[in-house]
């Protein structure tokens, strides 16, 4: 969280993350280039750069795409998500090296402009096997560049989280195009079953993890119980919510997180104002709802970030009837204070009713 924009707000975790990333990149390049020169000393420098950068960027993209679902399947992977944007921007730079070297190597110094050459040297757009695979690479690189250049919080704030998130979901489209780029390109030359197997393994891992995470998320998304009270939907029992944690519910199209803390309940939007992170998977820390993705914080009773921060989320009204929690899905404007529901009052009321009932019987 920050009040002003800065290129990078460095902290220990981010530095550690980036050092590990640089180490892995160096390890891959050392193995790839070292082995390439040892086994195939005839390779040209240009081909070495093209293949090393392309392979590294594609491997990094696989890791990037696996981090999201891994963090949803097991929260202990959340540190991998924390600085994923550095991984993404670095991957884009590596992919850019691949793209530029390809453009220079295969399309420059000819009788037409290199970019025109990319689209016109092979015009078999109607054939799958003969399709100009470079076009897939070009457009996926454009998407990755768009994502990298808008990755900063400045763009997140100005584009709004919803548009920003939609834009960044295009990474899946880019990934699909990159699979086609590799399949219709280098795999047409390098037909080794091992390479085809690696490609299939990568795609299956990405698709499998996303499916697994989607199934888990669907299970957790609580549909409202059959019960409606003056616009309030019955959603769960108080005991279902752990202390300082939340229950997330989808009611009337609203994604709501109901937090339990200090004998009270408060409901806010489940979408963090930063990157639409799942606030309901967060925790109350120092009296603030803390987003599990990047640690953005909000006060539970009004959805406002503690001063001097300015982020705000929508709030909702809650009601307790017996042990049942009811929520009104009509959102209040971001940062609107709503009095928390006191669990103690209800429990006391329940105890009194039970006591009266017992006394009546006697």
């Amino acid at each position, binding site marked *: *969280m920050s009040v002003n924009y800065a290129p990078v707000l460095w*902290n*220990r*975790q*981010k530095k550690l993350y980036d050092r*590990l990333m640089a180490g*892995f990149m160096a*390890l*891959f390049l050392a*193995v*790839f280039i070292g*082995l*390439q020169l040892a*086994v*195939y000393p*005839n*390779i*040209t420098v*240009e*081909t070495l750069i093209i293949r090393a950068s392309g*392979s590294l960027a594609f*491997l990094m993209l696989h*890791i990037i795409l696996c981090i999201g679902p891994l963090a*949803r*399947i*097991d*929260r*202990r*992977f*959340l*540190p*991998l998500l924390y*600085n994923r944007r550095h991984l993404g921007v670095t991957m884009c730079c590596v992919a850019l090296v691949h793209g530029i070297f390809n453009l220079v*190597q*295969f*399309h*420059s*110094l*000819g*009788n*037409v402009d290199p970019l025109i*050459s*990319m689209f016109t*040297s*092979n015009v078999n757009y109607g054939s799958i096997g*003969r399709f*100009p*695979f470079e076009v897939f690479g070009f457009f996926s690189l454009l998407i990755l560049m768009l994502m990298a250049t808008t990755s900063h919080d400045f763009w997140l704030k100005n584009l709004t989280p919803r548009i920003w998130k939609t834009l960044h979901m295009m990474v899946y489209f880019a990934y699909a195009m990159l699979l086609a780029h590799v399949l219709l*390109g280098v795999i047409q*030359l*390098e037909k080794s079953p*091992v*390479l085809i197997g690696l490609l299939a393994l990568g795609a299956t891992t990405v698709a499998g993890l996303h499916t697994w995470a989607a199934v*888990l998320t669907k299970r957790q998304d609580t549909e409202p119980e059959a019960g409606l009270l003056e616009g309030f939907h019955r959603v769960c029992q108080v005991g279902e919510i752990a202390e300082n944690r939340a229950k997330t519910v989808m009611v009337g199209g609203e994604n709501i997180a109901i937090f339990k803390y200090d004998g009270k309940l408060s409901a806010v939007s489940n979408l963090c104002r930063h990157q639409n992170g799942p606030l309901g*998977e967060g*925790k109350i*820390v120092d009296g603030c709802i*803390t987003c*599990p993705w990047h*640690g953005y914080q909000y006060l539970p009773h009004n959805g406002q970030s503690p001063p001097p921060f300015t982020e705000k989320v929508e709030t909702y009204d809650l009601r307790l009837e017996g042990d049942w929690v009811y929520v009104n899905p009509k959102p209040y404007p971001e940062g609107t204070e709503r009095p928390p529901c006191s669990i103690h009052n209800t429990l006391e009321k329940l105890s009194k009713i039970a006591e009266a009932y017992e006394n009546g019987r006697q």
Partner: protein
Amino acid sequence: MKTEGSEFYIGWQPEAPDGISRRVRHFILTVCIIVPVVGALLVLNQVGFADSSFEYGQPTALSGALVKTPAPFLQVFRGKDLNGKPVYQNILLVSPGKHGVGEQLAAFEQKMGRSLEGTIVKLKGNLIYHDGKTLMEVEDCLEMLADNKGVGLENPPKLLGGGAFIGEITDPKCLFGAMKPGYGKPHRSCAARCIAGGIPPVLKTLSTNGKVRYYLLAGEDGGALNEEVLPFVGDQVVVCGSVKKMGDWLVIFKDAGKPLGLAPEGLELGVPMCK
């Protein structure tokens, strides 16, 4: 969703909780294994690269007779064989970048004020060689040495036969050393640019016994075939024509009445009948 007790990770805090750190360490160890293994598998499962050479930045000056058709050659005298017959090496001429040598030779001829076909000239350029074939990327047309018309006739094209040939069309400059690999789908667009730029096309064929042969492609009358082959660059095609030997090069003079066509799927070897 699994969590380690009540542990909660906050990125801006200096330390991550123990259980979370442990899980991340496991992930890092896994990536430590995956990264080098993937790198090694990618390298070890490539088809490899030709031992061709491109003496880029190391120009050589050579003298010989200029032959312009069916492709631009410098016919260099290499001494005599055991029978005392002169031996010539035909060096295919190309220009820097993805261009044929036509414009450079035309400018040279204009400077000399005459046609240089069959004339002894001195050229300087970077040599490209592989598999018994040599090309020169001409940097400079240095001088006209002698009006020695007829030298080329010492080594006239010799008809070897005719038929149909299946192979991949690519450009000889990249194929013989300027790029590795200089063939196949990834190189297709580059080959198209080179051929569109005037470099004569070459057909790379594979015989049933695994031997690779290279044929320069020319029209029936010896004219350039570049425009006609462009839609088929990088594909397995069938070319019908007669083959002539020109020194160390084989040239297919394509039959004018038999258009190029894609080879039937799976038919990369053998010689189909030309219809």
